[in-house]
């Protein structure tokens, strides 16, 4: 418990540092949002007026603390490009991207844990089913190599165009129909999940294989444990922490995947917004999203550490 609190404090401090960096980075890089909005032919007076309206004429630090206040109040500032508060712009999109990643992660675990453990079970027993093992290795290798972008296109082609299970590009908002929304999101989530599931399967199998070479496994066999008992009682508890840590990593990697997959499936998520906001130099939106993503990454890491520590008393940080 004390450990969890310490983690939380570290997390908050780091988050402030990230927010400062995110803010400073955009005040340093070239590109003037006022010029971008009014065009290069705008008069200097008009530009100055717009900059003042955007608050860009004041010092960086005044702006930072002002922005910080708005971030914490939840409004997250005003979008330059859309003229509404960032919260309004980002709110639903974060829910969409969040649920896309959540579904992707659940699918990853749902596929990888049984396949990995059953696949590893073959290596634990004497009756190693060689052809099946070979097929599993081949499939995971191919799956890992396929980028979600391509997988998304393949899924769209197979399930959308050929089998007509869903209608491509006909995104259903969760505000209209939760069922329709979840059904539409099934396919993009699968595009994200499959390569990650393949990676997790590989990690499980190689961890099990490494673990089986250890002496305590031989002891366990000599005490009368059958192959199943060796796997479930001895090996799996020992690989739980590294596998969990890796799975958490795949959740973080899904951030970038979701940006790509949102484009392929025409999903109005935070990833697409981020790409367009960077193009439009809409700093308040970009800054807010950077902070949200950073917070997400840090929370995932912190939760993983706390859970891993709960599982494994040996870990001392």
């Amino acid at each position: 418990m004390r450990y969890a609190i310490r983690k939380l404090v570290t997390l908050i401090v780091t988050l402030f540092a990230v927010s400062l960096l995110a803010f400073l980075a955009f005040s340093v890089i070239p590109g003037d949002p006022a010029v971008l909005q009014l065009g290069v032919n705008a008069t200097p007076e008009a530009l100055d007026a717009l900059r003042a309206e955007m608050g860009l004429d004041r010092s960086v630090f005044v702006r930072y603390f002002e922005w910080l206040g708005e971030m914490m109040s939840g409004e997250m500032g005003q979008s330059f490009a859309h003229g509404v508060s960032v919260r309004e712009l980002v709110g639903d999109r974060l829910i969409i991207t969040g649920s896309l990643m959540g579904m992707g992660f659940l699918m990853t675990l749902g596929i990888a844990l049984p396949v990995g453990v059953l696949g590893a079970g073959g290596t634990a027993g004497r009756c190693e089913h060689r052809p099946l093992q070979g097929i599993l290795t081949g499939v995971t290798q191919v799956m890992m190599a396929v980028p979600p972008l391509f997988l998304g296109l393949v899924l769209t082609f197979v399930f959308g165009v050929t089998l007509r299970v869903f209608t491509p590009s006909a995104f259903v908002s969760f505000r209209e129909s939760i069922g329709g929304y979840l059904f539409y999101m099934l396919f993009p989530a699968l595009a994200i999940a499959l390569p990650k599931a393949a990676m997790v399967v590989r990690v499980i199998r190689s961890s099990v294989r490494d673990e089986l070479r250890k002496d305590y496994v031989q002891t366990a066999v000599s005490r009368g444990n059958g192959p199943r008992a060796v796997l479930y009682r001895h090996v799996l508890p020992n690989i739980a922490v590294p596998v969990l840590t890796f799975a958490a990593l795949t959740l973080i990697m899904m951030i970038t995947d979701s940006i790509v997959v949102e484009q392929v499936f025409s999903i109005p998520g935070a990833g697409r917004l981020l790409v367009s906001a960077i193009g439009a130099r809409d700093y308040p939106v970009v800054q807010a999203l950077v902070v949200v993503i950073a917070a997400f990454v840090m929370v995932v890491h912190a939760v993983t550490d706390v859970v891993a520590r709960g599982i494994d008393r040996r870990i001392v940080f």
Partner: protein
Amino acid sequence: MSRAILEVENLNAFYRDGRTRRQVLHGVRFELMEGEILGLVGESGSGKSTLARVILGLEPDYTGTVVHHTERPQMVFQDPGGSLNPRMTVRRTVEEPLIIAGGYSRAERAEMVREMLGLVGLDERYLERLPAALSGGQRQRVSIAAALIRRPQFVIADEPVSALDATVQAQVLDLLWDLHRQLGLSYLLISHDLAVVEEMCGRVMIMQGGRIVEAGTVEEVFDAPEHAYTKQLLRASRGSC
């Protein structure tokens, strides 16, 4: 009077090294008598551990016969660090053979674990510890406790003390000796340390290149070695004279 509890006849064992099948044991035969401590001496790679593994049924690729006249033998391994599951507490490790066997209530198991730990010189404070929180000697005691909890008649100890400090070695050997006396245990004691074998064993077998080259009582073999390899081993351990 005493009867054999293990009979090994014409045992050949093989080891798969990539595509080649290498023979690591050649026509091994011996008997282990009830209440006996039989030493098995040889350098590393001579096939000692393979022999132990075949007897335990951990090695599937062999020809010949291995006849047990007792229940499955238990094993004490060399490295007390690696041979214990790092995520199992002392209690779980020692209790596990009882759980596998089945038929013991929780209370019975707890009582047997407590008693067994007492026998190897550990008390209840150690019950909830993980191997990482134990010294090498304590781990080997836990390992011995787990091997003995089902009261086997026959224990194979593969270099049980060679990974331990000299003083701890003596303690663990004393423990094995006491348990032999108290419980009437038979051991197959595998060691490269002739002094250990001389102290503990009644009979000894010398192994070289997967063959037993000489066997007999410790006095016979150590005082009047016949095989050149035995003489060489003795010279090496006693220093040149």
